[in-house]
């Protein structure tokens, strides 16, 4: 009996100290890059895995298909890149709020997921933009709101951590934001549209691709205001300073643009009006 006790308490001690070691490691990673993470990164490079971080609730850029697999325009592009550049492709769904932690810890190589450059120019190493996106305002189709000025005094919602919220928090939009009755945040766009449909909120600030998808699939429940909240561009974001991988991606994407593969992939998502939003042609020489 006593023996069993000793064994159990030793086991407990081992597990507990392992936990503490694991915790302290992850805590220090964000500030100081430990040698351990460097080693991990090197092994990643040896295996040549290319890990793409994405939000799995962000159609058409990354989402869960009917069969449960991860699908999306950006994932298709990334997997085509890997095929051409000889990487092993890995799609890693992340919590959008934790994207910087994931990138800084080296859990993902890049964020390739309708990732907005505007306002984040100096925070990441970017490829050239390939999609021009805008943040639009969506209201219920029976709503009296017709133009941007009408949303004064209304309840407006955006996704937490999204570019719509970032845009509204900017100094230049202070007047618009202060005119709202309140600015609410939702965890994902689907709940945003449910809040809009059920009359909890009056207006949803949302990226154009997501808006088009819901406008097309909701049988006229919603309408989009003709004035945009803002216009913005998407690119692939790497950890600041990782120009080597960035250059590689830019080179392969340019090839994909020239041989028409890029547009062919975009056409698979034409329900989302993706082809209208492609702006890569302006950047490929």
């Amino acid at each position, binding site marked *: 009996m006593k023996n069993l006790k000793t064994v159990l308490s030793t086991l407990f001690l081992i597990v507990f100290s392992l936990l503490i070691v694991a915790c302290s490691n992850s*805590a220090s990673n964000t500030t100081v890059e430990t040698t351990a993470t460097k080693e991990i990164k090197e092994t990643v490079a040896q295996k040549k895995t290319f890990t793409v971080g994405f939000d799995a609730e962000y159609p058409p850029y990354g989402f869960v298909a009917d069969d449960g697999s991860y699908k999306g325009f950006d994932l298709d592009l990334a997997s085509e890149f890997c095929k051409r550049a000889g990487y092993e492709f890995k799609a890693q769904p992340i919590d959008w709020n*934790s994207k910087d932690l994931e990138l800084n810890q080296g859990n993902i190589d890049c964020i390739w997921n309708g990732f907005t450059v505007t306002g984040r120019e100096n925070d990441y190493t970017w490829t050239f933009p390939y999609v021009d996106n805008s943040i639009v305002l969506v209201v219920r189709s029976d709503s009296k709101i017709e133009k941007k000025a009408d949303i004064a005094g209304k309840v407006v919602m955006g996704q*937490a951590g999204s570019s719509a919220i970032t845009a509204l928090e900017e100094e230049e939009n202070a007047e618009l934001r202060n005119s709202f009755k309140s600015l*609410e945040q939702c965890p994902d766009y689907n709940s945003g549209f449910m809040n809009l449909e059920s*009359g*909890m*909120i009056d207006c949803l600030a949302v990226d154009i691709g997501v808006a088009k998808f819901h406008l097309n699939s909701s049988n006229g429940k919603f309408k989009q205001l003709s004035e945009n909240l803002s216009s913005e561009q998407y690119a692939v974001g790497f950890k600041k300073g990782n120009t080597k991988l960035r250059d590689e991606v830019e080179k392969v994407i340019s090839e994909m643009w020239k041989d028409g593969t890029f547009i062919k992939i975009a056409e698979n998502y034409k329900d989302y009006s993706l082809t209208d939003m492609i702006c890569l042609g302006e950047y490929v020489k």
Partner: protein
Amino acid sequence: MNNITDIIIRVFSGAGASSIIFFSTIIFSLPLGLLITFARMSKLKVLSGFAGFLISVLRGTPLMLQLFMWYYGPFYLFRVSLGLNWRLPAIIIGFSINYAAYFAEIFRSGIEGIPVGQYEAASVLGYTNSQTFIKIIFPQMVKRVIPPVTNEIITLIKDTSLAFAITYTEMFTVAKQIAAAKATIIPLLVAGIFYYIFNYIVAFVMGRIEKSFNYYK
């Protein structure tokens, strides 16, 4: 340093929103739990069967799903649009009813654990059924259920972060948003410390209450 003070203040500002959920749930769920216990222990088969079914549904489905039902249910089931003012009531109803189900089972175990001798003695002394319950059974039950109730209360404090599923911004959401904006995990650690302090206080107070009930030992 200023930066950290700023983070602490901003995270703490979300603590108010979490506390509203916490205190409202405690106030409503404890009495409601007792009512469900009575129903569950009722001699009426219909009543006890219904209470049993209620408890099994409330415990057997995720709290997050129940919050969705209370929040979106009025519109998607009955086409009643209640506006954003419905959000906090929906959260409090969802949390209170869910926790009442757990409390009900804890209370039942507390009541059923009291020896038959207590009832027999009360009967011999001429106590009516309600007198027996109020003066003899209930105080002993309270003593017995304090440790498991403390457990549930601590879980409740941590569960308040579920409210963001229906867009209610509470402490953990504020922390996550600052963490995202500043690319640091410090706000999450700060939130963790706040949860811990709050739970420590709860455990301390409940420990005191438990001790004050220990008058026969």
